[in-house]
């Protein structure tokens, strides 16, 4: 069981047509509207109609009482392959890898992967209140701080363990804001200085205002299909070199300081056939900067506990030597529920296909994307990552 050399690649499968439905802080529109508009935009971009899209993968927190099943009727789709992925920040990568397998196996031709969420004035509170049984029983009654509280404890523990300062986290947030200023859909439109960052009000010490994402409404999507189909449709695309997914890794860690990536990173990079050094841009899941540091470490960009030094020594902006969260990430664009788990992947595909909406990473060939999701009681359970390569050039 230990030898994973038999893992098959994703040859001939591509990801294409990255789309975003521009985010809104609050909107009365339901999740169905956001997901439906993303589907429409995917269709417009690809010139594919409902009858051509035979696979659908949906992620959303606010569809209740519906699931992906009800959406087939709502949207007039008759898919032969249907998936509903409730993995929050890991949804994008997981949707991609499942869809890619199904396309490679011939079970389905074209999968529309969509994540979208509503954000009514009460949505965020309602989502938190009934997030999970363990959270309801053992986390929410303790101050109802939501993920801020969970991440505050993780951040505190991580800072204590590795001598990390708030300023180190600030480097991540400040650089992302620089990236966001050229990204048209970012909800944060003002520059953020280190002074602003450090001076922000405390939310759940040591987590302060600019360590937190702003909940909003929005949707993201992409298509997964065979390369020949993408070429026939004239769609620029990226290929998938490697993916990984792991849930509830290291359950005995008293407080989470690493994620499932650390368990699988060797196999992950071996499958990709490249090393972290080869990566031109890295899109992490950034609901809080501490989890960005964990992804940098656990995916092998530096050793454990060295991420603070890493972000001190590297430039994380689009024009820097380590372009990171090139659209501004959720910290600056906003967190549209489950679409937050798609944001980095959609941005990576744009960068690799030369379609960046904001600043373009020069000669972007290889991108790493990682996802992290679902705080259940005290920690995030879902981790996932993918390495994508531009479809052009040697493709």
């Amino acid at each position, binding site marked *: 069981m230990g030898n994973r050399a038999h893992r098959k690649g994703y040859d001939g499968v591509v990801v294409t047509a990255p789309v975003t439905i521009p985010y809104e802080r609050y909107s009365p529109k339901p999740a169905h509207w956001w997901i439906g508009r993303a589907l429409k935009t995917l269709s417009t971009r690809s010139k594919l109609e409902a009858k051509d899209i035979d696979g659908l993968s949906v992620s959303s927190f606010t569809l209740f009482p519906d699931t992906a099943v009800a959406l087939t009727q709502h949207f007039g789709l008759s898919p032969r392959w249907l998936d509903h992925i409730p993995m929050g920040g890991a949804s994008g990568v997981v949707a991609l890898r499942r869809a890619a397998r199904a396309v490679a196996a011939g079970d389905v031709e074209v999968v529309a992967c969509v994540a979208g969420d509503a954000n009514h004035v009460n949505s*965020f*509170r309602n989502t*938190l*209140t*009934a997030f999970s*049984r*363990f959270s*309801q*029983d*053992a*986390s*929410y*009654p*303790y*101050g*109802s*701080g*939501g993920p*801020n*509280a969970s991440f*505050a*404890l*993780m951040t*505190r*523990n991580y800072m*204590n363990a590795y001598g990390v300062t708030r300023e180190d986290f600030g480097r991540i947030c400040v650089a992302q804001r620089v990236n966001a200023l050229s990204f048209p859909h970012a909800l944060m439109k003002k520059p953020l200085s280190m002074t602003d960052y450090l001076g922000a*009000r*405390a*939310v*759940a*010490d*040591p*987590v302060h205002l600019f360590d937190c994402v702003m909940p909003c409404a929005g949707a993201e999507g992409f298509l997964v299909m065979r390369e020949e189909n993408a070429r026939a449709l004239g769609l620029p695309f990226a290929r998938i070199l490697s993916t990984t997914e792991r849930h509830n890794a290291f*359950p005995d860690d*008293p*407080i989470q300081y690493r994620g499932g990536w650390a368990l699988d990173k060797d196999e992950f990079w071996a499958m990709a056939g490249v090393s972290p050094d080869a990566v031109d841009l890295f899109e992490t899941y950034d609901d809080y900067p501490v989890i960005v540091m964990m992804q940098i470490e656990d995916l092998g960009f530096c050793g454990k506990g060295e991420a603070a030094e890493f972000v001190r020594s590297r430039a994380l902006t689009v024009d820097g030597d380590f372009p990171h969260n090139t659209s501004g990430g959720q910290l600056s664009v906003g967190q549209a529920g489950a679409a937050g788990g798609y944001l980095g992947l959609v941005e990576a595909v744009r960068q690799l296909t030369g379609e960046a909406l904001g600043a373009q990473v020069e000669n972007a060939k290889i991108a790493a994307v990682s996802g992290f999701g679902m705080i259940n*009681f*005290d920690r995030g359970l879902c981790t996932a990552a993918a390495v994508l390569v531009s479809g052009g050039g040697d493709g």
Partner: protein
Amino acid sequence: MVDALKPPKRKDPLRYTRLPLAPPGARSRAALRFTARAAEGRLMLQQCEACGAFAYPPRDICGGCWSDELRWRDIPPEGKLLAETTLHASTNVYFRERLPWRIGSVKLAAGPVVLAHLHGDVREGDDVRIIARTDKSGQGVLMALPAKETENMSDDKALRALTCDPKFRRVLVTDVRTPLGQAVVRAALTAGASKVFLGVAREWTPFAGREALYALENTEVTPLDVTDGTSVSEAASSIGGKVDILINTAQYARPGTAMARRDVVTARDEMEVNFFGAMRLLQAFGPAMRGRGADGENSAVAWVNLLSVYALSNWPAYGVNAATQAAAHSLSQSARADFAGSGVKVVNVFHGPLDDEEHQPLPPPKVTPMALASGIMTALKEGVEQSFVGDIARDIAERWREDPGLLERELTLTKNLE
């Protein structure tokens, strides 16, 4: 060190009375069992019978070996505070109006890491003592206290939200004509009550200990006869808005089973006090207390019922009386629903036969009025909703928990009674 609580200022009657709010109260069925034990002040976690691992949060299947044999066990209250945070924002209105609020991750000696409320005197890295109590929603929660007693420890705001400490609160003792009632008055004053209302039935007739009782400072005589609806209503309209803790000391007990008595006259008297008396008090005083569950430092906080432990399982020596106590116990359970979410705890203090004239022929052990009064104050300070005072009450409680059917046979098949 936590700042000492200051005596609350006299309230401006025109000021808005803050409505009672509650922390999130939704729980799984497994977690409700934690609540049931926390209400007794017991710190219990599930332990897997198959692999021995302790589980938290409560679950249905062991996360170590998938056994469903999870047994609730008392665990040592020791732990270490690994990390803490101070919340400055909350999505819940109860916490929102109490910010900043501290919570932390505590590694229990039993194994699991839990989230817990933090006492003001504990710091990251400290060894802590963990308690389980019900919060204002009525659900069980964990709190980390300093490992050793600190100054003003019980004045901590997060702890005081879980307890019913009489300090600076106003207490109504419904019947002070008895040695029990008088012991409760004195114990409440010693516990720091700012005022004790002395409920006196038939005030025009003297009773033993009256002069000494009336001479106590911070007391106020209140005519109150629990068998008389008008009297109870009048008392409630006079002091109902000022009662933070109500301790119902009115009791009526006579020996005998149904067949040992010739009619229902005595039983009616017992019901008038033990059941209808409690019901009249609930109807007259309950609504005002329910509305004052968040009324500052001296918010309404506890409704205390004194119940014979034989309310749980009948003891034929006082068979009919035990039946009236069972009725009163059942009423207290429905009162829990009445007070749910108000921040007022229904505290049932079970006791064995009292060392008083009503139980004069019984051999020891019997509960002295002072012991019961002190047991009540302990229950209030600890914030438990169920307490057993005295050797007999604890013995019966243990046997009742173990097997109610067995206890019933033990108590009623008299051949077993040596």
